[in-house]
């Protein structure tokens, strides 16, 4: 299979869909040059820095038959548009009784590792998950990103594509031809039997590395990548934990009311899963601070494979005997 970077896969998904559907247009304060070249400045608009207005403009254009893509770039810039996201995009279909469809794709880069400090590095996706009316995903590979973007662009609802800063330049296989990955379907990135690690984005790769390491000690880790945040694949997460009896959630975001808290709740509120849960759940997340600049500090704040390994060992503690059961 071809190898593309995560960033390239994103551009390719957009370009392919734009070629197929004239109703799609793209807005960003700094759109990718290749898109501007191919589609011209009417379909790929370099906008004023007014993400609030543009987020609403996308809704209005969508309600009038277009299929806009609004690229917020860093997710921290989307907060100037939060009224349009929360009060308009998320509510407009429901509030008006389903009169119109509003097919809008919003794109946002999330996460750290870029040494850009607190106002550029953040993983606030759970803030959006708390809303009712938006779908959203956060892929960990170029192939997943492309397939989910294509689905999202064809979806008739507002969808947010969260894309990981750390993964932009990482390469991975991307199938040839047209393919789409449905929203709401998790991917088991590695099967295992002792512990389930639910991870997203960059942490999927850290979890896989941790699993490799732990395998040396005979610990079998299953890595579940939900890929989609809303709707979240409860069934896949629960099935995995029912099998392993143990859950670690690895997330680049802080823990509080985060994606990781949601996964913990999804697992522990389900009677069948709870019945099989052998250990406390464990959140392996960023420390609860804004993201600092200095590499020493930033690297200390974010979770990584080492912390995942420690987390896995923690939920296994004193219980390795269970394995015999």
């Amino acid at each position: 299979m071809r190898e593309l970077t995560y960033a390239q896969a994103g551009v390719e998904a957009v370009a392919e869909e734009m070629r197929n559907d004239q109703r799609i247009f793209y807005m960003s304060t700094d759109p990718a040059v290749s898109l501007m070249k191919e589609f011209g400045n009417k379909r790929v608009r370099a906008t004023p820095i007014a993400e609030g207005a543009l987020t609403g403009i996308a809704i209005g254009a969508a309600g009038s038959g277009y299929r806009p893509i609004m690229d917020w770039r860093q997710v921290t810039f989307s907060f100037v548009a939060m009224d349009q996201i929360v009060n308009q995009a998320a509510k407009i279909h429901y509030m008006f009784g389903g009169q119109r469809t509003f097919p809008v794709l919003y794109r946002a880069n999330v996460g750290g590792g870029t040494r850009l400090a607190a106002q550029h590095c953040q993983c606030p996706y759970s803030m959006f998950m708390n809303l009712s009316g938006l779908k959203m995903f956060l892929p960990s590979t170029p192939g997943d990103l492309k397939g989910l973007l294509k689905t999202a662009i064809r979806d008739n609802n507002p969808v947010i594509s969260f894309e990981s800063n750390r993964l932009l330049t990482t390469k991975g296989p991307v199938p040839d031809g047209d393919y789409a990955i449905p929203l709401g379907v998790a991917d088991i990135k590695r099967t295992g039997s002792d512990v389930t690690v639910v991870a997203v984005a960059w942490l999927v790769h850290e979890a896989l590395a941790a699993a490799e390491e732990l395998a040396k000690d005979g610990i079998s880790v299953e890595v579940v990548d939900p890929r989609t945040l809303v709707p979240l694949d409860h069934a896949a997460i629960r099935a995995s934990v029912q099998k392993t009896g143990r859950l670690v959630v690895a997330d680049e975001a802080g823990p509080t009311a985060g994606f990781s808290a949601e996964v913990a709740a999804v697992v522990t509120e389900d009677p069948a899963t709870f019945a099989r849960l052998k250990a406390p759940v464990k959140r392996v997340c960023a420390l609860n601070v804004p993201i600092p600049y200095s590499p020493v500090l930033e690297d200390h704040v974010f979770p990584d494979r080492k912390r995942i390994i420690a987390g896995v060992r923690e939920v296994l503690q004193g219980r390795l005997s269970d394995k015999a059961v």
Partner: protein
Amino acid sequence: MNLPPDKQREMLRQMLTIRCFEERASADYHAGKIYGVVHCYIGEEAVGVCSALEQGDQIISTHRGHGHCIAKGADLKRMMAELYGRQTGYCKGKGGSMHIADFGIGMLGANGIVAGGISIVTGAGLAAQMDGKGRVAVSFFGDGASNAGPFHECLNIAATWKLPMLYICENNMYAAQTSAAETHAMPDVAGRAAGYGIPGVVVDGNDIFAIHQAAARAIARARAGEGPTLIECKTFRWRAHTERIGQPDFRTEEEIETWKRRDPIARLRGQLEAQGALTDADWQAMNKEVSATIGDAVAFAEASPFPAPEQALEDMYAA
């Protein structure tokens, strides 16, 4: 103003319809049949913009949206049913007074967030431009909204992209309990247009012809691809900010009385009478008809079922 008498009478009927609709909505709100909140437009009915629009043109409104709905041709029955929280309402009871929309007639909704609709309808304007069929889009908003960020962001974008837009600021001199004088450095919102290189026009907001005329010019400009216009209609609401009991209102009786004497309905009626285009009998008949229509709307609403509780789970996502 040389509108044919028929059109003028139609305008009068429309203003009367708005007033009667709201008088009834207010009464039914106080009777506990309408819930939440109702913002009345009474005194500001001279919404002469929609009469200058064509089918396919789109508008967006505010929390004070009944007048815009009616002017754009919304069905009174479905409006009233929405206020009554019924299944047959425009939003199946999910929206209420602050969220009536009829996308079918190009009415993109009342909006509960001040300045919240300006961007959305600017997107409709962008769509109209891309469609290339000469359609326009209209953003209605208040003096209060003109101080919020989206006003500025959208006027700049629309001016730069030459979008076929009308920005209609209905300046009723107050935002809830706060006077425009306390919150605006300048008395005229229209004066801000020059900064974006677009026309900014002040009109008597109680003179439906003046508004119609200014709108017609702006629409022609927009259809010709020359970009947006900002029109400021100076007007006044007769009633409190909302129908809720006990809300503060610092406006003086005198100020309110002065504006009641500028009643846009009485004015048009007088003009038509002066032209010999409306007799007292015509006026009585018109009142009777309008009042019957409102009665029908209420009857329809009352006869309509409430939604089933589980319908709360419907309309979440489009297929």
